């Protein structure tokens, strides 16, 4: 079979899957295919997409970041506390993002310089980030932020919500960065063949630090967006994002083995996952069951990814 045709099959399969999900959801609920609900689904997907952007970069290098949920919570809680203490919004936001970036940078150093296995380094960072968030929050929930801060999460520009616009800009920027720049190509090269990349002059160490830092940054942005939308910050806010983030990236066609995939795929993956959760809610499945379903979804998604790869070769 022609290589190009083969490369098209997986994305077409994914889009068909989205369409099938939409049809199923429309049958279950006639209000599904309305403008408001579609916008709603997209807005729900934004957080997952943003977390998935940095995560995609990490996974492209055949790494993994298990700290995204913890970083999201830490950044959300830090910014919330700073806002509550009366700091101006830009300062609070910048400090929050700096915290997320710093955790990501440390992950990168642990993986790239010290050569810890990525899941050990980032899993440790997850517990530390959650521990720090616990310290900041002392078991409380913080709510009631200035409306100009909340605008990022709930505002509109014309008919389109601000978070969707923000996410779209980020996706385009990431896609450009990963596919059109030299550094982006180095990221792919590193993931597809580490040794070859090293010998052809790719700075393995720097690239590794960069992708983990980016992942910390995007998880942080998602944390800000989430606090702005919910008008609240709490310790457990990042919990779903670890599993769902990885699932979106893998379902979007980025291989856990590295070197293959694209952030546009991650967007589709995040939308699929959001639709699945939406469908579970529509079917009246209690929230406690979601954990089980999502666990099964991620295992299946990774399985299909590996099978497809085997089949393509």
């Amino acid at each position, binding site marked *: 079979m022609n290589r190009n045709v083969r490369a098209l099959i997986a994305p077409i399969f994914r889009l068909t899957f989205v369409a099938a999900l939409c049809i199923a959801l429309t049958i279950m609920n006639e209000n599904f295919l309305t403008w408001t609900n579609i916008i709603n689904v997209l807005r729900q997907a934004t957080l997952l997409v943003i977390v998935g952007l940095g995560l995609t970069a990490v996974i492209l290098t055949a790494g993994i970041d298990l700290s995204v949920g913890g970083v999201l919570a830490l950044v959300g809680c830090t910014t919330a506390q700073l806002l509550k203490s009366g700091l101006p919004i830009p300062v609070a936001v910048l400090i929050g993002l700096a915290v997320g970036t710093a955790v990501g940078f440390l992950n990168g150093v642990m993986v790239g310089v010290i050569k810890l296995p990525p899941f050990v380094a980032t899993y440790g960072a997850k517990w530390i980030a959650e*521990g720090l968030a616990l310290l900041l929050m002392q078991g409380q929930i913080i709510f009631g932020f200035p409306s100009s801060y909340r605008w990022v999460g709930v505002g509109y520009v014309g008919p389109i919500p601000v978070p969707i616009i923000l996410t779209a800009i980020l996706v385009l920027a990431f896609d450009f960065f990963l596919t059109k720049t030299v550094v982006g190509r180095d990221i792919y090269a590193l993931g597809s063949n580490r040794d070859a990349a090293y010998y052809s002059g790719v700075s393995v160490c720097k690239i590794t630090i960069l992708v983990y830092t980016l992942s910390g940054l995007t998880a942080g942005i998602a944390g800000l967006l989430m606090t702005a939308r919910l008008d609240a910050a709490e310790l457990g806010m990042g919990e779903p994002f670890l*599993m769902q983030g990885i699932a979106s990236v893998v379902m979007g066609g980025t291989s856990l083995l590295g070197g293959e995939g694209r952030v546009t795929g991650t967007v589709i993956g995040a939308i699929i996952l959001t639709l699945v959760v939406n469908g579970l809610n529509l079917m009246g499945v209690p929230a406690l069951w979601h*954990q089980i379903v999502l666990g099964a979804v991620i295992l299946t998604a990774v399985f299909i990814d590996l099978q497809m790869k085997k089949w393509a070769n």
Partner: protein
Amino acid sequence: MQVKTLLGQWRQIPPAIWIVVLMCLIYGKVAPGFFTLSNLTNVAMQAAPLLIVAVGVTTVILTEGIDLSVGFIMGLVSVVVSLLLKAGLGIWWAMLGGLGAGFLCGLTNGVMVASVGLPPFIATLGVGSMAYGVGLVLTEGQSIQALDPVLLFLTNGSLAGVNMSIILAAAVFGICWLLMYETAFGRNVISLGGNPEALRVVGVNTRRVSILVYGVSGLLAAVAGLLVASRTGSGYAAAAMGWDFDAIGATIIGGTSFEEGKGGIGKTVLGVLLISILRNGLNVAGVHNMYQFALIGLVVLGTIVLDVRFRQTVEGGLKAQ
């Protein structure tokens, strides 16, 4: 010359030991109650469940795998035991049910890794999160009381003056030691990490070995889950959140590495001691629970980093010679 060899020998001591000594010195100064017999017994009691889980995780890591599900499995087991007790089953059946649930989760991990071919961290994270979900659904997220005298005896009781949980941990460790170093299965596990190809050539069913290793890890997590249920007198799906990190930390600090199946369950004892002393000392020194979470994570990850650096320099030194 002699000074040099002495210095060389000093540098052979892994950082984990330095940190244990340092911690003991600091705690001895800051917390007067630290070096009492009753407190040291406390340390051993707290170390017991962690040692049991960590031994399982170590065996998995020896095969170049990872098990991120043990914390979830422990929670599920505590839930299963409590619910079976609540349903009127005898304690022995309830405990058997709990152990069975843990073993089953472990085997599922193994099948996902060895037969389906998923990367271990995804497989165990997925199975673990499903186990957690099952625990949540069974209890609706609530904690279930389990005040059975036999169950409570596991932490409160003692035999010949030694606390039951310590005896249990020692027994489990002994059995695992025999399993690892005196049986064909153990030899296969160790070679599986070092040289799987050779094992396959000899005709060992590596897939079965791998599945069993994850099964053993699940079973040991279940034993630790019983201890947690016994200590808290309840079953709760989120009872053992974060234990997986402690167990992995103890394994790596002890000196088992992810490459080439180096290390062993004996070394993990050191890592378990480090984490248990750290936690106990913070308690005795009166550090609030909220600070402990981040602090313990920092020390564990920091020690791992130091340890990996240490091994790199030692190995680098050996190569240079």
